[in-house]
């Protein structure tokens, strides 16, 4: 992996996510920002995709089961070239092709409609099963939220994936420690996602979800085995990459006040400057 290239891609996705949500004026900042590094590794290096032919038969599939992270995914798709970056400013506007939760029938590059939590992972399992049955090489990548794992359907899907030895399925658990109403440990204590996924029959590892190198390494390790589906527990922070938002208590869905806005604008400015300097340097 070209680390510099993927880190730059990560910064571009984060910048576009912030600009997109800032333009809209509200939205799911927290859970969009915590998956940026993973999206950068997937779309920047790991996944075989073709932005000019989103439905390319040999592509790897990506399903964002935690659909409220849609704005982050849209930013990744725009930077990757699936659609013009200006389209990001239509997020949630009337008649948009970018609804708050992904819709495969509206947005180029979105493989499955998600947003009703627990459902994307089952669809991802179905895609992986299909490719295994047809002896195709496509891989399926799916991000689930830590809060989303409250849903029983996720655990149904995990049992199914392990039973069918879907080694072509990579599940990322975005363990950002918070869900809408507060800390996951206060609502439904996850206790230990890694131990759970391991017990459910997954090849499991836990990584720093803010480190693109670590995420990349974990995916490569998962690819080296052919018996089990892969679970990568991402140790992340809700609002990741923007210190002010990371420290904000209620950062699942933010309707920024004056100081929030100032901090978001500052973060946008810093990322723009950084990216410009990199081009200059």
């Amino acid at each position, binding site marked *: 992996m070209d680390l510099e290239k993927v880190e730059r891609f990560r910064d571009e996705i984060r910048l576009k996510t912030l600009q997109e949500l800032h333009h809209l004026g509200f939205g799911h900042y927290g859970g969009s920002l915590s998956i940026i590094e993973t999206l950068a590794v997937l779309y920047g290096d790991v996944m075989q995709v073709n932005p000019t032919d989103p439905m390319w038969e040999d592509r790897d599939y990506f399903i964002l089961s935690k659909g409220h992270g849609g704005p982050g995914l849209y930013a990744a798709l725009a930077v990757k070239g699936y659609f013009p970056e200006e389209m990001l400013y239509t997020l949630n506007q009337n008649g948009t092709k970018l609804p708050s939760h992904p819709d495969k029938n509206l947005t180029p590059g979105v493989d*499955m409609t998600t947003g*009703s939590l627990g459902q994307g992972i*089952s*669809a991802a*399992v179905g895609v992986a099963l299909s490719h295994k049955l*047809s002896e195709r090489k496509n891989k399926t990548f799916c991000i689930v939220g830590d809060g989303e794992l409250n849903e029983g*359907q996720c655990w149904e899907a995990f*049992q*199914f994936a392990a039973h069918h030895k879907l080694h072509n399925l990579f599940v990322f658990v975005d363990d950002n420690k918070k869900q809408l109403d507060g800390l996951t440990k206060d609502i439904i204590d996850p206790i230990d996602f890694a131990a759970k996924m391991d017990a459910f029959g997954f090849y499991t590892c836990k990584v720093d979800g803010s480190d693109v190198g670590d995420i990349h390494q974990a995916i490569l390790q998962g690819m080296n085995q052919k018996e089990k589906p892969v679970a990568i527990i991402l140790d992340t922070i809700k609002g990741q990459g923007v210190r002010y938002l990371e420290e904000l208590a209620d950062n699942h869905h933010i309707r920024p006040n004056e100081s929030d806005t100032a901090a978001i604008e500052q973060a946008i400015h810093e990322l723009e400057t950084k990216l410009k300097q990199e081009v200059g340097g």
Partner: protein
Amino acid sequence: MISTVYEKEKREMRQVYAETILELAKANPEVIALEADLMSAITTNKIKAEIPNQLINSGIMEANMMGVAAGLSLTGKIPYVHTFGQFATRRTFDQLFVSGGYAKTNIKILGSDAGITAEHNGGTHMTFEDIGLMRLVPQAHVYEASDSTMLGYLLRRIEKEHGIHYIRTIRKNAVKLYEENETFEDGKGKLLRDGCDVTIIATGIMVAEALQAADILERQGIHAAVIDMYSIKPIDAELITEYAQKTKAIVTAENHNVIGGLGSAVSEVLAENHPVPMYRIGVREQFGQVGKVDYLKTYYKLTNTDIVEAVQRLIEK
């Protein structure tokens, strides 16, 4: 229509399902059947060895099964999903609504043990609301099979059609209604018997009851038309309107709640096109319970006598 003896078929509906799935799967490698630990109940266990990679037991996880079906369809597979009607619809409603209908994926759903035919499984397993739920899914096609010829035909026909298709059926022996070469169009009803005084529109097991009611009425000098409205959505508005105009009274008969099902669908057509006096035979504000079909038919007022009485009341008005 085949005869007026109303004999039970030798071939069970579940056999028709298993044999048709086997036929479709052998002919097309993209066909995948999914089960939720009810293979023995629908007899697909008997075909498993012949199509091991195209018949998958998902275990007792209907919600996931519906999502897996959606995922399979994203890659061009043609999933057929079976479980008892209440699990196929009310348990997985959000999954089939969002991952199915809303996402515009391609899932064929068989809901078995329609209404009172769940018999000794009782109230937890007795669905009187599956048609109502499925009608609420935009663009979904909703059918109730009334005999083995129809079930086999519908299963074959929907293979090539994209979207959400729900077929409701009993598992065991239906009354034989159709010759083997009969065809069943989407959005059409079958006029089984013509008449000029009243039209009885029925589905599933109630079609045979409607025909027997028509025989009784005939002896009383009341000429009843009988329509098998197997395609509940889309529904044959043209035929309903034509017979409302012709016979001036309509009775619907369904092994389902009168809210949301056939009776609702027919009354919606009548209200908007040609209102006539009507009565809906069906389950009213009740849950299911254990019992044999004959007992439950009487309990829920789903017999040919109930249809006859409804017609008499309607015509007297």
